[in-house]
Each structure stands twice: as C-alpha cells, then as structure tokens.
C-alpha cells in the first residue's frame, strides 16, 4: 500500500515533534516549545505572512513587487494615524488603504505605463520611506509623545481573547479551565510540547492575527478555485494566451496589485497597531523583503508561504524570548539531518547522503562549540535560508512564468 500524502505529512509532523521534544528534555530548554515562545513567534509570523501573501497576489497576476516594503511603510503610518484618531479597527482599515495606495502607484507605473517592475518597486520604497517622514513632520511633530520619527501612542488596543476550556478563555464571565497550560506545565514527552504549542496558538490572540491567518485559505480558494482566480493566474502565466481568450489582463493586474498593496498595508498595520501601539520610523525593518523571501521559499503557494512565515517567525521569536535556546536548535537541526541521512541511504540518493552528512556534522560541531550566537548574525537567517533554498531547490521552484515581463494588450506578439 502506498501511504497517502496526508499520512506522510502527519508522520513527519509527529517525527519532528518527537525530535524537538527529545531535544527539549535533553538540553532542558523548555523555551523551545513554551507557549510564550510560540505566542511571540505567532505575533512575529503575522506581518511576514501577510507580506508574503502580498507578494503572491502580485506575482500571480504577473507583476514583481519589490515595493512591498514601501507599501508596508504606508500601512504602518496610515494605520497608526487612523488608530490614533479613531481607534484600532479604523486604523487597520487605514493601513489597508495606505498599502492599496502604494499598490495603485505600482499598478499605474507598471501596467499603465509599462515601466520596469523592479524600478517601480524600488522607487516606491524610497517614496514611502521619505513620504511618511514628511507626513510625520507635518502631523506628529509637536503632539505629546509624537515626533519626526514616531507617532503619539494610541489610546485603545485591539481586544485579545483566549480560547475557552483549552487555554483559559472566559465563557459568559466564567473563567474556564486552562487545559493546555496544565499540559504544558507537566513537561511530558510530546504531550508537553503539544500543550505549549497549542496554548501559544490559542492564548491571548489578537483578532488581527485571526484575520491574517484567514487570508491564507481565502487567497488559496480565490486564486485556485474561482473563475476570477484562474484568470488572474493566467495573466501571470501567459498573458498573451489569456488575452486571446478575452481575459482583460491589465484589469486583473490592477486588481491583483490593489489586493497585494492592501495585504502589505495590513501587514504594516499589524506592526504599528497590534505588535506595538505607535508608529515608529523603520518599524518594518526589512520585513517586506522577508515576505518576498518567504514567497520564494514557499514556492509561490499559500501553504508554502504559511510554512515559511512560521519558520522565520519562530526563529525570530525564539531569539527574542529565549536567546539561550538557540544553541539547542543546532541539536534539533543535527537530529533532523541524521534522520534524512538515514532516509537517503535507504532510498539510495547519493546526492542527499553527502548534503545531509555535511549538515549533520556542521550543526553537531556548532552545538558543541558555539555557546552564544551573535544577535547580528541571526538577523540574516531568513535571507541566508532563502538564498540556500534558491541555490539548492531552484529546479523544483515554479514561479509564475511571466511574472516580471511587461505586457501591452493589443500589440502583436
């Protein structure tokens, strides 16, 4: 019997859990799967995830979006302004609108005027960075707590909730049990990790996080299961063929870029409204580019982007919450590598044998010798991982065929 795809997935998730649980008990680093690490990781995942989805929507309709970072900057500024003036929900709306403005500029420049998509993106990044600085000088300077590089703090925060029964949420005023928290505190093999991860994902969750996570299945459904999505993807794969079948490629690219900008703006909004309570210059800190990296890592697919964003978010989260635990991750990588090493011997894949062995030796040596990983080097992890993925799995990556190629409707091809 050939095991189904889902069965393999469950086995590998369980295997990874078993390994990380063993590593946790071995090294005594409970922070690896504690609910606070996972919770922080989730909060850091959200903007990267949304930025990645922004990249997906743009590239699927055939336009590279280097300007995600700039659109996120618009999102942080306008989101913080809206939240400061009218409250967090309106703030998120303004963040989306701010990002959509960036998307519209990108669309007009690349779709209407056909200029190079990379150039347009780069200019949007510059324009956004200095544009919001100009706006800050006009609006925030002189307000209490505000200045040229930051907004006054917001008065209200978005509500957060805990899931009832599982992680101590309230049902009509009655505080229910915190089952997962109890499970986590027992520190059992695998079950303790499940408790920590589960509680991290369900305890003190902001509604904005829920929205962000919902974006993934909704995007996947719209892009792959609706007529609109098929047409949008076709204008990224083969605009000429799409046009010959009567698809209005340029209209769809406008739509795609508006959605892309809106998602990037929302990503910025979660930074200035959910993750903190004010706008600060440089708040995006290159997350737009991490989002771009995540999109490549995720092979231009929503599920892959979710995986990549969780990975990068987890790496960032563990660095923030428990930087001592990072060395334990080397042991985790070594263990994973040895599993793949054995698998590749069984499957007789020579190229993998060498790679996995090298990874195993490197990470094992790193675990024995490195005591602290310098903060400055861990920052570059998403970028290094993306370059490695690009360099090793380039043949298996499948970007939209015509993303980045200018298209003029009605011209002979």
């Amino acid at each position, binding site marked *: 019997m050939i095991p189904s795809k889902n069965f393999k997935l469950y086995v590998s998730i369980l295997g990874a859990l078993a390994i990380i649980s063993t590593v946790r008990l071995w090294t005594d680093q409970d922070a690896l799967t504690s609910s606070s690490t996972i919770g922080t990781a989730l909060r850091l995942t959200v903007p990267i995830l949304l930025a990645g989805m922004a990249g997906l929507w743009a590239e699927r309709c055939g336009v*590279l979006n*280097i300007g995600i970072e700039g659109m996120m900057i618009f999102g942080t500024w306008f989101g913080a302004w809206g939240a400061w003036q009218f409250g967090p929900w309106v703030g998120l709306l303004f963040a989306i609108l701010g990002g959509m403005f960036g998307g519209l*500029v990108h669309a007009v*420049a690349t779709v209407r*005027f*056909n*200029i*190079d998509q*990379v*150039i*347009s993106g*780069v*200019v949007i*990044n*510059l*324009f956004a*960075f*200095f*544009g919001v*600085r*100009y*706006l800050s*000088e*006009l609006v925030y300077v002189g307000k209490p707590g505000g200045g040229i590089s930051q907004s006054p703090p917001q008065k209200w925060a978005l509500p957060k909730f805990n899931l009832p029964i599982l992680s101590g949420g309230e049902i009509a005023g009655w505080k229910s049990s915190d089952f997962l928290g109890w499970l986590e505190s027992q520190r059992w093999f695998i079950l303790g990790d499940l408790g920590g991860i589960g509680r991290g994902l369900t305890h003190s969750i902001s509604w904005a996080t829920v929205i962000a996570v919902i974006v993934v299945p909704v995007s996947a459904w719209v892009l792959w299961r609706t007529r609109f999505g098929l047409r949008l993807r076709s204008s990224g794969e083969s605009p000429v063929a799409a046009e010959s079948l009567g698809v209005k490629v340029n209209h769809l690219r406008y739509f795609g870029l508006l959605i892309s900008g809106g998602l990037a703006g929302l990503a910025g909004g979660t930074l200035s409204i959910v993750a903190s309570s004010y706008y600060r210059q440089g708040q995006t800190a*290159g997350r737009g*580019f991490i989002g*771009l*990296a995540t999109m*490549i890592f995720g092979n231009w697919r929503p599920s892959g982007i979710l995986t990549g964003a969780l990975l990068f978010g987890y790496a960032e989260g563990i660095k923030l919450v428990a930087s001592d635990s990072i060395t334990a991750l080397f042991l985790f990588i070594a263990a994973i590598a040895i599993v793949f090493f054995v698998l590749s011997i069984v499957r007789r894949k020579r190229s993998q044998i060498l790679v996995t062995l090298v990874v195993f030796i490197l990470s094992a040596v790193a675990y024995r010798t490195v005591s602290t990983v*310098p903060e*400055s*080097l*861990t*920052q*570059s992890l998403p*970028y*290094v991982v*993306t*370059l490695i993925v*690009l*360099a090793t799995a*380039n043949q298996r990556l499948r970007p939209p065929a015509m993303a980045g190629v200018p298209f003029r409707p009605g011209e002979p091809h």
Partner: protein
Amino acid sequence: MSQNINSQRNFNSMRKSLNTLGSSVSAIILALIICGVLLLVTGKDPFAAYGKILETGLTSDKFLEMLKRATPLIFSAIAVAIGFKMNLFNIGVEGQYLFAALIAAEMGTHVSLPRPLHILFILVVAMISGAAWASVAAFLKIVRGINEVISTIMLNYIALSFIQWLFETFFRDNSDGGLNVKTTKIAPSGRMPDLVHDRLNGMFIIALLVAFLYWIVVFRSRFGFQLRASGLNPIAARTAGIPANRMILIALMLSGAVAGLVAMSAVIGDVYGYGPSAIATQFGFAGISVALLGRNHPLGIIGAAMLFGFLDSTSAELQLSGIPSSIVKVIQAIIVLVVVIVNEASSRRYNRRTAERAALALKSLDI
C-alpha cells in the same frame, strides 16, 4: 554619399540626445508640479518652498556642498549603470559599499605606506571588497541561475548583519571612549587631501575620473560593446561568440568595484575610519535613482547627481524656514518615477515614429 549618410547619422544621434534631454527636463518640471500640488494639499506654500530651495541652493557657499553630496552618488550611480548596460539590476550596491567601507577602513590601519600609495592601497582594497561581495551574486546567477534582483536584495541584508558582526567582534576600537564608536583612525598618510579645506575632498576628482573611465570602457571599448550587446540581445550576443557567463561575472564585479568607492569620500576624507553611525547609508538606492535620471550616460549621471546634491544641500535651510526637509527626498523620488515613465513613453513614441517613417520610405521605393 557616405559623408551625407554620416552627417545624417550625426544629425539623428544629436536629435535623439536632444530629445532625451528635452524629455528629462520636461519630466523634472512635471515632477515639480506634482510635488507642488502635494505641498499645497498638505498646507505648505510650494512657491515659498521652491523659492527657498533656489535661494539657498544657488549661493556659492552651497556649490561646494552640492559637489560634496554628489560625489558618492556619482560612484553609486555608475555602479548601478554598469549593471543596467548589461540588463543586470544590481540592487546590492548598498551592501557592497558598506562592506567595502568597513574592510577598507580596517585594512587601511594595518599598513604603513607613503601618502599616495597608502591612499591607493585603501581605494584598491575597497574596490576588491566591493567586487568580492558582488561576485557572490554573480556566482549564484551563473552557477544556479538565481535572478540577481532577488539575490542582491538578500545579500544587502546579509551584508548589514555580517558587517555589524565583524565590527562588533573584531574591528571596533573602544579606546576613544565616546558613544560614537568607530574603527581605529586611519593614519594621516592614508587620508584623502582636501580640494577646498574641510569642504570638498579629492574623491570628487576621482568620481569624475571614474565617470570618464566608465565612458571609455562601456561606450568606446570592445569589451563595452560586448557588454552592451549582451544587455540588448543576449541571444544574438551568445551567437556572436560573446561568453555570457564571463560577461555576467565581469559586469557585476566591475559594478561592485565602483560601488566599493561610494563611501570612500567619508572613510578617508571625513571620518578616517568606519563607524555604524558615521557612514551614511541609503546611497545604494539613491544611486539607482541617479542612474535612472541620468539614463546611464556618464554626463547624465554627473548632472543628475549634481541635481540631487543640490536638492539635498538645501534641506537644513528648508527645515529652518518651517518646511519639512524630507520634501527634498520626496521630490527626488517623484522626479525619478516621472522621468522613468516619460522616458518609457517617449522612447515608445520614438520607436513608433521610426517604424512609421521606415514604412513610408519603403513605400516610396515602390517595391
């Protein structure tokens, strides 16, 4: 007859460059109008702002500052333009020049040489380091086929953290005791002499020299022809026997080498070392703007860099007179966007008109 064709060709090329200049100038004016509207909407008087820019920018005092601010932009724009000429988008100038600045500043403290040699040594180290960092992107493109746009973006961030790590763990000099930490100061023999005391240093001359060399190498040499041919039509170039991979490697390394010089006017002219807060960032991205505005031509780049330097030099006075100084950068970004759009539109119109004229000429031949 041949003379006739020649003069016709000269006339055509002159008309084309006049066209180019005209479209760039009109684009700049259009951008200023858009910016004026932006100023008006945000409650500032555009005439007052532009008046202030002209009033302060046109004093002889500001002339030197303009040249000083233009210097790194010229290097950065030429680095970007070398890539553009081969259809390579080197977004990585940012990482390349910062990496080169740190390495050159550190290496410069470890040698003792007489003055011109010491300066030369530092400049060469900077160029090698910039080229080395750029070659990573070149190898990734040649060996694994990774688009240089993505790889140079990633390498920018990797460079930033790598530099920070190198600086914090090895090169930092704490003896000064101040908050503003730097590498050890470069000895006087390695410092670039000033052209005008404390206002402008010799790197400006080197920038002009590099612009001239760029013109010779890219527009007047065999190598430059191969470079531009690979950019205009890679398939034709390969058919003609131009080695594509070697061209990629050389073009990106040349670009990185010039990028390595971007921060040198600060490293050996002002700061005499490297410090995270002493060396200005963002020149890599500004260089892209300047290259686009100057349309990859050395004279255009120098002119565009002067324009940006001119605008930058007025920011302090603007701030004093109640107009947010960031408007200068906003103007620059809008100028670039409008220029790129106008250039694209005008080149399409030019191509269409050429095609129409050719069709007309063919018709009159009555074939």
